[in-house]
């Protein structure tokens, strides 16, 4: 690791609120998407001449389509409850990273163009013209938000900065000011089927290699099937699971669970991506387009169940939006939804999270484990923001916190939680979510990880934790990169199904 060109935040003795350092992050911004990337998505290739007019027009358009944006623009009273809740503020001390201040970048423009007091007395109510400086400020600070929703937990009106960030990014896209990293990925998923741009043959090779590795390792023929029509389960997982470390360890684990339970399953090369970066820019049509690939494959392969792998924002889109976007769920009465829903097995939740799937099998006694196999690990669990605050698992609110922990406790002996002010519904983001997982934002990412690193250090010191399990591809990639900045081994992070994989019995026990 090269020496960083910025200062790593120091752990605090007491969890005090940092003093503000205005504009300390004003220079940190992601690369702008080029013309090729932009036009592949149907956005203007570069900032259009009449960007101001277009931006205001799109702003008005969004206000009419999204109640969240409209209510959130009107309702904030600047009470300050959210001001010390954002990991980026805690890590950077830049006041524009306080949720209310971030929203205010947009709200000030809302007031100027959409409210009477802002038109008449702009100074008095803090209204601003949408100048080029303001637009640049949007680009800078709306790409220092990971849309983790932590602020929304503490807002007396439930104002969710993620909704504001999405709207701002969408406006930026439509005037030709897109972000390279996210929009390039959207181009790949639309063209090839996954965020990494892995074509079908490459996937096939990888999966064959996995089968050989698992065979060498365990002596058992665990299959990693691709494009198998008539399989019971279609598994949709983030494409990082096919290649990246430690992600692939969890993919190995999913295969072992299917094998041990004797349930037929398949991956798909056409729908080889659970992630959906359409979420990050709040572009409904884009998000729908990406999600439609999964509907189409489910219909084509004739599967009965859809299961989603370990990925935070993917689970948000799958759990909360797939039914809306693609009819993949239950309870639909329109022909579009019914076409798919009559094919899916109503005895199961559609879609199911891989953790729900595994936990159900554990409860039915269909999986057996050698817990001692994980005895070299002292484990803690990092709740991923989109799972924690934007979705659910199981039958009751909060199941998303218990089910992964239940699985860990079933497959391992040593588990401790981090400080309760940093987990479950108030969990801190890894610092890399929401479309900021790109190299040029490393400063944002390292500083944003600070509150999580602080809590991790505590359990490392007190309990000797050496494994932080998580169920998100972005969390895994982000921590792998960021942990060394704080003096940790990058292998400290891994997946829940990596632990399952270590302990599961594959023989003829059943």
């Amino acid at each position, binding site marked *: 690791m090269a020496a960083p060109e910025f200062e790593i935040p120091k752990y605090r003795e007491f969890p005090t609120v940092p003093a503000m350092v205005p504009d300390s992050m004003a220079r940190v911004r992601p690369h702008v998407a080029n013309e090729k990337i932009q036009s592949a998505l149907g956005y203007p290739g570069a900032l259009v001449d009449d960007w101001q007019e277009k931006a205001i027009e799109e702003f008005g358009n969004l206000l009419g389509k999204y109640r969240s944006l409209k*209510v959130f623009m009107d309702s904030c009273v600047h009470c300050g*409850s959210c001001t010390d809740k954002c990991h980026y503020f805690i890590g950077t001390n830049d006041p524009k990273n306080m949720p209310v201040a971030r929203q205010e970048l947009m709200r000030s423009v809302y007031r100027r163009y959409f409210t009477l007091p802002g038109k008449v007395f702009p100074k008095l109510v803090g209204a601003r013209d949408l100048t080029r400086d303001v637009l640049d400020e949007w680009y800078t600070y709306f790409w220092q938000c990971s849309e983790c929703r932590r602020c929304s937990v503490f807002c007396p009106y439930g104002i969710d900065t993620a909704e504001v960030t999405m709207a701002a990014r969408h406006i930026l896209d439509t005037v030709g000011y897109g972000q390279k990293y996210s929009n390039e990925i959207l181009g790949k998923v639309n063209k090839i089927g996954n965020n990494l741009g892995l074509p079908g043959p490459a996937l096939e090779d990888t999966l064959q290699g996995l089968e050989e590795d698992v065979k060498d390792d365990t002596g058992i023929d665990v299959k990693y099937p691709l494009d198998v029509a008539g399989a019971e389960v279609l598994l949709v997982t983030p494409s990082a699971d096919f290649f990246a470390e430690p992600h692939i360890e969890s993919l190995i684990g999913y295969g072992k669970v299917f094998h041990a339970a004797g349930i037929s399953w398949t991956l798909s090369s056409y729908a080889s991506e659970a992630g959906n970066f359409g979420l990050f820019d709040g572009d409904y049509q884009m998000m729908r387009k990406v999600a439609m690939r999964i509907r189409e494959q489910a219909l084509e392969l004739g599967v009965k169940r859809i299961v989603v792998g370990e990925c935070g924002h993917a689970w948000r889109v799958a759990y909360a939006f797939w*039914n809306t976007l693609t009819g993949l769920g239950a309870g639909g009465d329109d022909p579009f939804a019914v076409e798919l829903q009559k094919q899916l097995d109503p005895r199961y939740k559609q879609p199911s999270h891989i953790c729900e799937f595994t936990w159900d099998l554990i409860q039915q006694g269909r999986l057996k484990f050698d817990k001692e196999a994980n005895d070299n690990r002292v484990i803690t669990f990092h709740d991923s923001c989109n799972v924690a605050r934007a979705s659910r698992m199981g039958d009751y609110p909060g199941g998303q916190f218990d089910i992964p922990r239940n699985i860990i406790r079933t497959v391992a002996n040593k588990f401790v939680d981090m400080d309760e002010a940093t987990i479950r*519904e108030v969990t801190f983001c890894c610092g890399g979510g929401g479309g900021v997982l790109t190299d040029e934002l490393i400063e944002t990412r390292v500083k944003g990880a600070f509150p999580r690193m602080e809590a991790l250090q505590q359990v490392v010191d007190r309990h000797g934790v050496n494994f932080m399990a998580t169920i998100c591809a972005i969390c895994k990639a982000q921590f792998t990169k960021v942990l060394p900045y704080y003096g940790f081994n990058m292998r400290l992070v891994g997946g829940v199904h990596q632990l399952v994989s270590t302990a599961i019995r594959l023989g003829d026990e059943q």
Partner: protein
Amino acid sequence: MTLFFTILFYLATAALVAGLAYKIYDFARTPAPLSIPTTPAPTTKPGVAFRLAREVVLFESLFKGNLWIWLFGWLFHMGLFLVLVRHLRYFVSDVPAWLLFIQPFGKYAAFMMVAGLAGLWARRLFVERIRYISTPSDHLWLVLLLVIGMSGTAMTFLMHTDVVAVKAFFLGLMRFDIQPLPAHPGLFIHLLLVALLMILFPFSKLLHAPGVFFSPTRNMADNPRETRHLAPWAAQIEKN
């Protein structure tokens, strides 16, 4: 002065009612196209109603967020609520027993209200983060409410006005039978600022009052796998 306040209060009432009605209509007609409750969230409608009730009565989320803001904000709002209920006596000719019963509570709640406002303003002035996010209008709202609260409290406890005549004036307004308003500087200030508040309400951050009921992160049930949630404009996309 009677004529001035007569016109002012008709105007203010019209602005408040029409402005708020429009804003509520505007919130209600705008769809929430995606299921976005902040989870863990209730899975049923009664559960959602209970969550919203906790937000409105107890300020649950604010309590989780910051105890000082919660304390001052809750004191102010609950004080204001009791004070407003107490003021109902100026608008009904026969005061019912329960309204008589709460009069002393309403009287002293004024101190809660003023104390809460003072606390909120102190935070706005002295806490760096909150000073940073405050606009001039944020300060002015607190001043406006403080002066309303203090002028009212002063009339209750120090420099009394002819409340019987005040009541006759407001009952008269409601019956379109104008009665003289007592000449009292405290009363004039109090009523002038109340009218100003009523007029500005629908154009300001005071919209958080209806807003909280329309906030999708709080008023949506967590049931997206069981129910297909489709906005009209999104359904249109499906047809294309």
